[in-house]
């Protein structure tokens, strides 16, 4: 029998991990944890037992990239993140829904759309997070927030389940797969190529899990979440904040950030 709360908690962990990796350059602390023996063992355990072939293959690629990474690769990964997500060159990968849904380089067409979803869950893009509401990291954190809310609600928050399904179906899946394809094409490191595949495959199975309960998917997600616990990721909201604000959020950004690269 399905452990409803456990499944949604697992989904929350997974979305948290994906959101963190896509929202900024990897911190040294996270990089060391990712390369740490405990996490690699956990991930290896998951990969060797995962019953879903494509999920297993995608996460195996991420595992391989991490196993091959040396201490010096932290700087290279930061460079690559900045290169593909910040630099306006030919290799740029826009992590914003608007770019894919409107086919324009950088517009705010999807910002109003995502804000409607955020408002329904009584959250908004955190003003402290200096980027747009339709950044993939915010949307993945929204999925995480909803999963967490569903897991914590005594009645299973059916209205939040419905909202999450609608957000996934009507918005997130309308652009995230293409983003993954572009990221895979333009990334040069094994890590970001693997991340593109991991996001796509995880979204695919999460959608399928919502549509048809399947023991193998639930088992895989539970094992994956268990592997991710070794990272001891912060459970605080980062890109989102609770409550409603007039207008749904400031229409600023993304503003240039001061960055120093090694």
């Amino acid at each position, binding site marked *: 029998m399905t452990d409803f709360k456990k499944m949604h908690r697992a989904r929350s962990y997974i979305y948290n991990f994906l959101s963190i990796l896509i929202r900024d350059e990897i911190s040294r602390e996270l990089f060391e944890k990712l390369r740490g023996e405990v996490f690699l063992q956990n991930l290896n355990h998951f990969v060797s037992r995962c019953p879903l072939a494509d999920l297993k293959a995608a996460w195996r690629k991420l595992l391989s990239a991490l196993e091959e990474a040396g201490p010096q690769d932290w700087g290279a990964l930061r460079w690559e993140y900045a290169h593909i997500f910040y630099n306006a060159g030919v290799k740029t990968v826009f992590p914003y829904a608007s770019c894919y849904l409107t086919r324009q380089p950088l517009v705010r067409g999807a910002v109003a759309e995502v804000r409607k979803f955020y408002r329904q869950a009584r959250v908004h893009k955190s003003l402290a997070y200096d980027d747009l509401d339709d950044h993939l990291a915010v949307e993945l954190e929204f999925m995480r927030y909803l999963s967490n809310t569903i897991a914590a609600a005594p009645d299973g928050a059916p209205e939040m389940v419905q909202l999450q399904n609608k957000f996934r179906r009507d918005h997130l899946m309308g652009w995230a797969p293409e983003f993954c*394809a572009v990221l895979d094409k333009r990334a040069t490191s094994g890590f970001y190529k693997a991340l593109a595949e991991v996001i796509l495959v995880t979204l695919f199975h999460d959608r399928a899990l919502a549509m048809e309960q399947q023991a193998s998917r639930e088992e895989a997600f539970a094992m994956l979440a268990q592997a991710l616990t070794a990272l001891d990721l912060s459970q605080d909201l980062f890109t989102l904040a609770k409550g409603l604000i007039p207008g749904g959020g400031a229409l600023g950004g993304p503003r240039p950030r001061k960055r120093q690269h090694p």
Partner: protein
Amino acid sequence: MELLEELRRLNPDLRSIAVSQSPSLPRLRQAISLGVQEILFTPLDPEELEAKITKVVKAVKRDLKEALALQ
């Protein structure tokens, strides 16, 4: 994909919606390069399919309107 490639050759303005049974990045990239407007994954959701068709039809109508306005 071969069929889509051939259809696009016959009609470069063809609008298409691809349905994928698996989350394969190479297939996804191929579909995008062939100009697929929308991508759906299985299991199919009838509401999602309807929404995608509506979106593509709207885009066709908009393009036709723009083309007629230019004449």
